[in-house]
């Protein structure tokens, strides 16, 4: 496997445009958690023209609802959830500057098109490897929607958080490429 590309958030257009489906990436810096309920709230605020509780320009959203942290730890197990449930909201967030999403599972055509249009990428982490992925998360702080419990928006500081590019800005799709390569 190729050597991982190290990237630090926030990401620029140039950062994401050089990535291609299948690239292994180590993310560093700050990323934000967000899943179903938080996405709906962000989407509703944008529809009403109101400001968001976090600035998403150049940012990466990690689709995760972590397990509670044991005492002395930054976070509990923290692997990603299925991304398809965020499809209805993602194009709008990319329009305002979101550059990356981390999840698992296929995205709708509209989301893939939005990645091409607004220059953003979709990463997969290893789903279900929540204990392993939590090791790369050094700090976690809830920044919005505390009432949502595990679905609150949390600011994560990550070091070499391991992901792989599934959809790049050119419309390539690792899920389709990988399956075509091994189907028989």
């Amino acid at each position, binding site marked *: 496997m190729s050597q991982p590309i190290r990237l630090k958030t926030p990401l620029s257009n140039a950062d994401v445009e050089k990535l291609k489906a299948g690239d292994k990436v180590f993310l560093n810096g700050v990323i934000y958690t967000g899943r179903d309920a938080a996405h709906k709230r962000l989407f509703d605020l944008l529809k009403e023209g109101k400001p968001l509780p976090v600035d998403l320009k150049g940012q990466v959203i990690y689709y995760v609802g*972590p397990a509670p942290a044991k005492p002395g730890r930054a976070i509990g197990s923290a692997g990603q959830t299925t991304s398809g449930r965020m499809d209805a909201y993602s194009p709008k967030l990319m329009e305002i500057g979101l550059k990356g999403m981390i999840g698992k599972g*296929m995205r709708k055509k509209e989301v893939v098109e939005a990645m091409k249009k607004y220059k953003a990428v979709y990463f997969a982490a290893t789903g279900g490897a929540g204990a*392993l992925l939590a090791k790369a998360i050094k700090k976690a702080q809830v920044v919005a929607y505390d009432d949502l419990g*595990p679905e609150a928006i949390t600011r994560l500081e990550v070091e070499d958080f391991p992901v*792989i590019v599934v959809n790049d800005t050119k419309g390539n799709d690792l899920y389709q490429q990988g*399956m075509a390569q091994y189907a028989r």
Partner: protein
Amino acid sequence: MREIDAKQITEVVKKLCIDSNFYLGEDVLAALDRGEKMEESPVGKEVFQQLKENVRIAREEQVAICQDTGLAVVFVELGQEVHIIGGDFNAAINEGVRQGYKEGYLRKSSCHPFTRANTKDNTPAIIHLSLVSGDKIKIILAPKGGGAENMSTVIMLSPSEGIEGVKNRVVEWVKQAGSNPCPPVVVGVGVGGTFEEVALTAKKALLRPLGQKNPDPQLAAMEEELLTRVNNLGIGPQGLGGRITALAVNVEMIPCHIASFPMAVNLNCHAHRHQEAVI
């Protein structure tokens, strides 16, 4: 009659909630080892290594294997010679879930379907009770994550579709689920019964140890064929392309109505969790 205190049920359920989320069974660990060896894709092999490393961290550091610690699905085989004293049976199980998910730092994932408001203690448990002979209580706790559970289905086939119809639907279903249910998956298939029973049969199929075939030779052959066909889809570990899409296909069958031919597919992720205890 043998008397069993409800508090004992609570204690056992609490421990099973924690243990099932921290440890995988030997059969699953062996299946991950086999999968890693058989996987042809370099990325897929790396995924297997990550999954094994993840399981090791969870066991050694006593943390959840996956952040989705599931709804607590509880199968209870209650001996008919047992008299439960000192409390309500269902309340005792739910109290065990409440305590286990709190003390194990497990995620609470149970919510109101419309408002999505979290119940905050992962109750109510999903309880499947069967009355059996004897004076013991067997409890199997199988936490079920949402990602894999969402990729499940019940189909009321026409009897004319026959065994080939079932096989084709299973393969099609796993294909369309793709990377969503966190492959490598375990495929539970139920055939026969009624609408509700076939779904439960598929779920019970997931409880059979991986690598143990159905004793019925026809179903054993069906399991083997389905595993080959599913792995030929090329979905691979995490859907990134590869040889191993499923660790096992387990099929269970029960008789059905002369007009009906129900089937169900219940997928589980590689974090194929269940633990049991006998009181």
